[in-house]
């Protein structure tokens, strides 16, 4: 029997960097859904965040007509894939009164929730399930990981704006109104989680990395014991323990998904063809774990890992906090000013230029990611054709903390659900409307409005 699941069998690790050969990705689960009909890849949904807003006249294309031909400086890096991008002007953010003193805690925490935190109990987390987690609950059920949450730096910033819990400052994904989802910041552990099933111990010792077949049974018993414990706890304790129960159940599902794939791989090894598989001619992807502290390298690797996770259908939902609204600086751009402080630029040219450089830098990382997706063939088209990648910020203008016209870029065709290559002007909707629309396009039934959403933005749909 194979020691590990499919991707590992084909993985070769070399030294510090790991180069992965990834042919035949369609073998990994979803391809077998139909043996005869043309296969339709699943839609993947990704979010990437930058705080503090943009310099508007450097970000928004001049007109719908010139969208493809003359991108403004901030999004110049997207030029090669503009035909697969979509921008829309007129998406407003959620009004933040009575929490006016917390623009930065709210720009991130409302980004995927379109909901204000509970202003009456500010010191605990109580907001709403976020759009990515709604998607994870639905389309995440088909993959080994329901969703992937990444960040470039640890979510440990402490700042207390308006008495709000610090978690609002560093989280945008919420599994439930009271449960922020931590993001992974270490590329190596992300890699291990995606492709190595179990820790590094086995890698080092050369021992088997195979899952203990009794692990699920053991977890079942532990889960039973936890339920007994729950019965003798107070209401609030029970609620806390529910997070644990949810965690264990999700772990069991993940082990089941891995076992399923092991079985499939074994069948394939035995020569039993499970389905008609589309041979893929994707180039191998090389993953190099950066050693220095160059931000661009860290961001690139997180982008690579997202591409890889989508390409191998390990997950269909990802959220990447490219940067949190705290003391981040970008020495590689030639200055050490902190992002937040330069955004209060008061229209001084020198500071405006720095903000613009930081924005362009962040968009360039996003551009890098979507271009990789465009270069990967999948089915009849490319991976990007089947993705919905949203880049954006939670503020329009960091100088004045405005949120009337939030900057977003959508890339990818969403499996034919989005009409790209356009700037759509005069949209009148809010960030909740946009999230509802993207979920719908990703095939997620939106049975409850997302935050302040009242409608779908049909103008961007195909």
């Amino acid at each position: 029997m194979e020691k590990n699941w499919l991707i590992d069998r084909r993985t070769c690790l070399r030294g510090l960097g790991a180069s992965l050969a990834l042919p035949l990705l369609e073998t990994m689960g979803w391809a077998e859904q139909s043996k005869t009909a043309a296969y339709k890849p699943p839609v993947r949904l990704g979010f990437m965040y930058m705080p503090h807003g943009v310099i508007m006249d450097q970000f928004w294309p001049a007109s719908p007509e010139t969208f493809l031909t003359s991108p403004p400086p901030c999004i110049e890096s997207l030029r090669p894939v503009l035909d697969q991008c979509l921008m829309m002007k007129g998406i407003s953010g959620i009004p933040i009164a009575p929490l006016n003193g917390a623009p930065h805690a709210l720009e991130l925490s409302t980004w995927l929730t379109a909901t204000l935190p509970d202003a009456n109990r500010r010191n605990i987390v109580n907001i709403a399930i976020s759009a990515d987690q709604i998607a994870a609950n639905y389309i995440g059920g088909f993959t080994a990981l329901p969703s992937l949450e990444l960040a470039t730096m640890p979510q440990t910033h402490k700042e207390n704006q308006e008495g709000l819990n610090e978690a609002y400052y560093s989280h945008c994904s919420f599994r439930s109104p009271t449960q922020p989802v931590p993001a992974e910041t270490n590329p190596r552990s992300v890699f291990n989680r995606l492709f190595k099933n179990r820790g590094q111990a086995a890698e080092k010792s050369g021992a088997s990395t195979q899952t203990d077949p009794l692990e699920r049974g053991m977890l079942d018993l532990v889960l039973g014991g936890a339920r007994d414990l729950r019965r003798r706890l107070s209401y609030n304790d029970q609620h806390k323990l529910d997070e644990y129960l949810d965690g264990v159940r999700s772990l069991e599902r993940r082990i089941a998904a891995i076992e399923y794939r092991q079985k499939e791989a074994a069948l394939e090894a035995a020569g039993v063809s499970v389905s008609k598989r589309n041979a893929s001619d994707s180039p191998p992807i090389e993953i190099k774990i950066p050693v220095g502290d160059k931000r661009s390298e860290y961001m690139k690797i997180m982008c690579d890992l997202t591409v890889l996770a989508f390409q191998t259908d390990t997950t269909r939902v990802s959220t990447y906090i490219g940067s949190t609204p705290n003391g981040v600086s970008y020495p590689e751009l030639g200055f050490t000013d902190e992002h937040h402080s330069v955004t209060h630029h008061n229209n001084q040219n020198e500071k405006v230029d720095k903000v613009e450089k930081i924005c362009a830098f962040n968009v360039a990382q996003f551009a890098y990611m979507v271009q990789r997706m465009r270069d990967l063939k999948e089915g009849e088209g490319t991976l990007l054709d089947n993705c919905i990648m949203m880049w954006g910020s939670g503020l329009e203008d960091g100088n004045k903390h405005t949120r009337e016209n939030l900057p977003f870029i959508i890339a990818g065709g969403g499996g034919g659900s989005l009409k790209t290559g356009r700037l759509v002007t005069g949209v009148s909707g809010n960030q909740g409307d946009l999230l509802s629309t993207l979920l719908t396009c990703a095939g997620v039934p939106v049975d409850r409005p997302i935050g302040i959403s009242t409608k779908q933005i049909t103008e961007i749909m195909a």
Partner: protein
Amino acid sequence: MSLVVSERRRVGDRFGLAVSLWRSTWVALVCVVAGTGAANAEVAAELDLAAAQATAQKTFKEKIVPFVSTYCTDCHGEKKRKGGMTFMYALRNPGMATFRKQWKQSVASLKAHDMPPEEAKKQPTPEETQVFIDWVSEMKYLSPKDPGLFVIRRLNKVEYGNTLHDLLGVDPMVAQELPDEVVGAGYLNSLSPLLMEQYLVVANEVLSRVLAPENAPPTEVQRRLFGELPPGGTDSREAVHKIAQTLTRSAYRRPASEGELDVLMGVFDLGVQNGRGYFESLRLVLKAILVSPQFLFITPDGVLESGADIVALDDFQIASRLSYLLWSTSPDAELSALADAGKLHEPAVLGEQVRRLLADPRSRALFDGFGAQWLGLGMLANKTFDAAKFPQMTPSMRSAMYDEARLMFDSITRENLSISSFIDADYTFLNETLAGIYGLEGEVKGSEMRKVRLNNTNRGGILGMPGILATTSFPNRTSPVNRGVWVLEQVLGEHVPPPPPDVPTLEKQDKTKIANLTLRQRTELHRTNPVCANCHKILDPIGFGLENFDAIGRWRDKDDSGGAIDAAGELPGEKRFSSPAELKKIIGARTDDLSRNLIEKLLSYALGRQLEGYDEIVIDRLAQAIANDGYRMQTLVTQIVTSYPFMHRRVLEPKETSNGKKLAN
């Protein structure tokens, strides 16, 4: 008294009712215990409190309610809620912690004459306004006695690693792949699927490190945990039951119930039924323990008394709470034995244990977890510095700076000094690297940190400490404003509001006009703007007083523009200074503020939540007790550990808080 009760009933506040009843109990108690010294003092304190509570209630009913109804609720009432603000809920439950901020803001708006707006027809008289302003300082007396909501707490990353180390002897770094987290107030107690996955990964990793593979000779840890193979013919399940009992006593930090042991016996049976040997099945049992909620969370012993909303912590929870506070790891044998004997909740026993734990080297965890966060040094290791300007900021320099503060904290704690030493100590801890910053490069050799006496009174204490001066600077220059804010907030416990958005900054001034100004002269332009002046007139002088220290804490006489440093300034109360040493004297004289601030920060850290409502009364009492004992550091810690909110917990949320929002499904 009866008046208070009926009034509270009228507004339907069940907590108000509870306080009143509780207060009557005290009155009854007075009659019984009157005559004994210490008890007398305590009773007197409770009586004072009861009187203060009655007064606050009376003022609220007779003055505040009419004031708000007359001048505020037309715009901020049930129907109109201008700016999203309403007094509807606050009037109903004035003492609720939730509304504390609203009341304080109302006072701020009144003081600033922002509210009621000029165009409002009805304007309060200055006397009416003053009554409202004065009442806010009494407001705490409206809060019912309440230890605060406390839900079962998950071990944080550091605690989890240390606990695994104590239990199984593995390197605590085994937990390093877990997400980093911030402990203390607002600690994110949640457990995500990712974390659960990682717990299983770590459990597997730990077991593969400490247990031998099947059929290999057992490791030492294995022998300690599992003992020898039971002789043939005996019931191996009986032996397993015993082993599970011992393992869980340490791992669950309390005795396991029979039901909990049954679960583990079930895991053992699962192994055996699937053809695993005795030790392999025990391995599965240990893995189950390591992913059980009783290990990952600090859970109460026994069953919750039904209907109770405030309960005392049991001795096992106290042992854990204390041990994780001071050591960031599980209780040791002595603490566990005291918990088993049911003695730990006794204040004298607890105080003795605080001293013992603080004397142990493991208590450095208190600095790593609390002290570093208090001083803001957690950020130092990864803070960006302009490498061309400050090549000195190497990793070894940063770690020496961190260690200096750590050893200082440690010295004040272990030697049980007055907390004023944080400001006025005449010694510090240096190695050769760090001595360079002090200009003492010739005097200290080698990489080892050691105690150094300081003759220069500008140095010594946290205000002149390089690590702190560096964390409060920008990557390329000092920030007098950041330093001022740091001193006010971290040292004196004052709250500095964030600058309003869209205020014009310094550099908006004509470039040619400011080109030749020193940073000080430029910053002082702030204070010509009335919007800024209010805060900056206090912040800036403090920051300027420290301008002789550059962005990494070196002494200098000229700033970056070449102008001479002018460290003179004045603080409210005509307190003048002309050097860091004199500034330190002024700050150091405010021991009560420093003490109160440290109490608040440490209590908040110990409870893992922000402080509110009744906590303010607790702090008043702690501050008094600590001042009476010469502000000694160990007294401060002991007072916190034996305080009411540390030893109790509320298990149900007050029903009134909800704004109608349902919790997670």
